[in-house]
C-alpha cells in the first residue's frame, strides 16, 4: 500500500500506523486536550501514538530534536503544533524527505506549504471576536482597558493581543489602554498582575485576557476589590472550566477553540495515509465560537449550555 513506508524500512509491517505527535508543551491544558483526543482517536483506529513536547512554549530546539527522534524511530506520520513557524522547517523537511506525512496542528508554518496539511485555528480571528464582543457589550461606553497578556514574543500571544485590539478598535499605545502585564497565562501571575494594575487603574471597565487561567486570576483580584461586577472580562480558550466560569458570571465571554477536532482529524488523516497513501492537503480552519450567556447584537454566539457540551479539557 504505502509505497514510501516500504522502502525506508519503517515498521508498519504489522499494519499498525505509527503516529508521532509533537505539541508545544506538555502542560498547557489546550495541548493536553489535543494530546488526549489524539490518543483516544489513535486507540480507536488501532494506531500507535508517541506524544512528545517541547519543554516550554517556544522550545523550538526541543521540537526539532523530538522530530528527529521520531524520524529515527520510524513513524509514518507526524502531527506538530510548531512553537516557531519558521524554526521548525528544516526538521519538517527532513521528515518529509523520508516519506513521512507531516501535518501542522493549531499553528501554521511559514510558508504554509512546508507541511502536507494544516488543521488550525486562527488566533487573530479569535482575538478579534473577543474584542468585538467586548466593544459591543460596553454599549458605547468609552473602554478603559487592562490587558493580561501571555508571554512576551509568543506567536499565539501576539496574535490574540493584536486581534483583540483590532476587534475592539483601539490602536496599540492608545491611552484607553490603562495598563498591560505579562502573565504567561498563569492564574497566579495574572492575579498578582491585576492586583498591582488595579492599584493605579481603579476605574477600569474592560479586561482582555490571554486565556482562561489568566481570566480567572484577573477575576479573583477584581472580586477581592469588589470590582468584578463593574468590569467586563473577556477570554479565549473554551476549556470546560472556562465555560463554567462564564456560566457562573465570572467573566462575560470566552472564545472557544477546538483542539479535539484538530487532533482527531490529524490522526484520521495519518491512518488514511498509511492505508491508502492518500495525503490530506491545504488548510483546514477548525474555527472558533463566541460563548456567552449575554449575547449582543451583531455577534454570533452560543450559550454556555452549548459550550459545556462542546468544551475540551
Amino acid at each position: 500500500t504505502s509505497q514510501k513506508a516500504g522502502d525506508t524500512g519503517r515498521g508498519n509491517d504489522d499494519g499498525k500506523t505509527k503516529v508521532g505527535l509533537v505539541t508545544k508543551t506538555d502542560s498547557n491544558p489546550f495541548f493536553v486536550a489535543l494530546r488526549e483526543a489524539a490518543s483516544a482517536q489513535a486507540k480507536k483506529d488501532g494506531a500507535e501514538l508517541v506524544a512528545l513536547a517541547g519543554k516550554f512554549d517556544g522550545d523550538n530546539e526541543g521540537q526539532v530534536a523530538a522530530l528527529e527522534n521520531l524520524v529515527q524511530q520510524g513513524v509514518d506520520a507526524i502531527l506538530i503544533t510548531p512553537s516557531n513557524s519558521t524554526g521548525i522547517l528544516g526538521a519538517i523537511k527532513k521528515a518529509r524527505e523520508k516519506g513521512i506525512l507531516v501535518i501542522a496542528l493549531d499553528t501554521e508554518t511559514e510558508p504554509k506549504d512546508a507541511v502536507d496539511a494544516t488543521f488550525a485555528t486562527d488566533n487573530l480571528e479569535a482575538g478579534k471576536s473577543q474584542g468585538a464582543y467586548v466593544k459591543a457589550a460596553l454599549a458605547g461606553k468609552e473602554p478603559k482597558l487592562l490587558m493580561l497578556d501571555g508571554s512576551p514574543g509568543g506567536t499565539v500571544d501576539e496574535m490574540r493581543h493584536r486581534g483583540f485590539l483590532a476587534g475592539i478598535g483601539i490602536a496599540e499605545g492608545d491611552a484607553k489602554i490603562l495598563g498591560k502585564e505579562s502573565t504567561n497565562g498563569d492564574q497566579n501571575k495574572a492575579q498578582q498582575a491585576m492586583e498591582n494594575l488595579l492599584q493605579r487603574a481603579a476605574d477600569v471597565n474592560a479586561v482582555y485576557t490571554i486565556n482562561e487561567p489568566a481570566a480567572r486570576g484577573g477575576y479573583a483580584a477584581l472580586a477581592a476589590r469588589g470590582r468584578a461586577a463593574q468590569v467586563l472580562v473577556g477570554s479565549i480558550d473554551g476549556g470546560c472550566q472556562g465555560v463554567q466560569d462564564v456560566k457562573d458570571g465570572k467573566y462575560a465571554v470566552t472564545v472557544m477553540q477546538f483542539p479535539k477536532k484538530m487532533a482527531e482529524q490529524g490522526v484520521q488523516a495519518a491512518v488514511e495515509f498509511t492505508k491508502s497513501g492518500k495525503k490530506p492537503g491545504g488548510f483546514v480552519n477548525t474555527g472558533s465560537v463566541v460563548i456567552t450567556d449575554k449575547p449582543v447584537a451583531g455577534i454570533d454566539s452560543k450559550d454556555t449550555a452549548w459550550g459545556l457540551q462542546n468544551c475540551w479539557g
Partner: protein
Amino acid sequence: MRAKTSEFILRTPAVGPAIALVAAVLVFSLTTNTFLNSDNLSLIVQQSLVVGTLALGQTLVILTGGIDLANAATAVLGTLLMAKLVVGGVSGTVALITGIAAAVAIGALIGGIVTGASLPPFIVTLGMLTIVTAVSRIYAEGRSYPVTDDVLGLLGVRQYLFGHIEVTVGMGLALLMFGGAWYALTKTAWGKHVYAVGNDPESARLSGINARRTVLSVYVVAGLVYGIAAWQALGRVPNADPNAFQMGNLDSITAVVLGGTSLFGGRGSVIGTLVGALIVAVLRSGLTQAGIDSLYQDVATGVLVIVAVAVDRFSRRKQR
C-alpha cells in the same frame, strides 16, 4: 559607636537586605502616589506569601550547603492532591493532611537519596523536579481544579486590623513559620547542627554531629514547609493548577540569596529570606505602579535585584 553599628550589621545578617528593602519602598513611595498605602502594602505581603514560604524551606536546604529545585513542584503536587481529593469527596482536613504528607514524603525521599548515596542535591532535586512535575501533569489529566472547601481556603480568609489594614490568615501562619524557623535555627541544637553541617561537613562529622540525620531532617522539614506552601497557594488562588509556580524554585532561591544567605551553605538567616521575598514583590508592584511595561520592568527588576545585593554587601563591607 561606629564599631557598635557595624558589629550590629555584621551579627544581624538581615540588616543589609532590610536596608535594600526600605530603600526600594522609599523610592516607589516618592515616585508614585499609588504605592504607599496600607492596601497596597498588604497586597505585596500577600503576593509574597507562597514564594516566601517556598523560600523558607529553601533557606533550610541551602544552609546545609544543598539546593532544592523541586520545591515548587512539590507544592504544586500538594495543591493537586488536596483539590482532587476534595473533588473525590474526601473532607478538607483529610485532603489537607494528605497533601502535606505527600510533600513530606517527597522531602524524605530527596533527603534519603542525598544522604544515603551522597549525591549532589542539585542533581537529585533536578531529577525530582522533572519527575514530580510529570507526575502532577499526569495526575491532573490536563485540567486545573477549583477549590471551594473552607479548610483548604482558610489561609485566604481576610480580616481588617485597626479598621483598614487587610490581613489574611495566611499572613499569620507565615509569620508563625518564619518565627518558628528562626527559633529552631538559632535557639536549638538542631539549628546549630544545620549551620555546622553546611559550614564544613567534614568538621561537623568529626565533631560527632550526625550529619546525615541532620541533613535528612532538613529535607523532611522543608517538605513540610512546601506542603504548607501548597495550602498557602490555595488560600491565595483557590485553584490547583499543574502549571502553577514553574519559576517558583528560581524565585525562592532569589529570595534566599537576596536575603543574604550564602549558596555555599552555613551562613544566612530566615529573616533575611523574608526580607528577600518582600523585595521581589515590592519591585514588581512598584514598577507596575510606575506604569512601566512588562519588558522594561524586567530590565529594571534585573538591575534592581543586582543593586539590592550590592547594597547588602556594601553595608557589610565596612567590617573587612
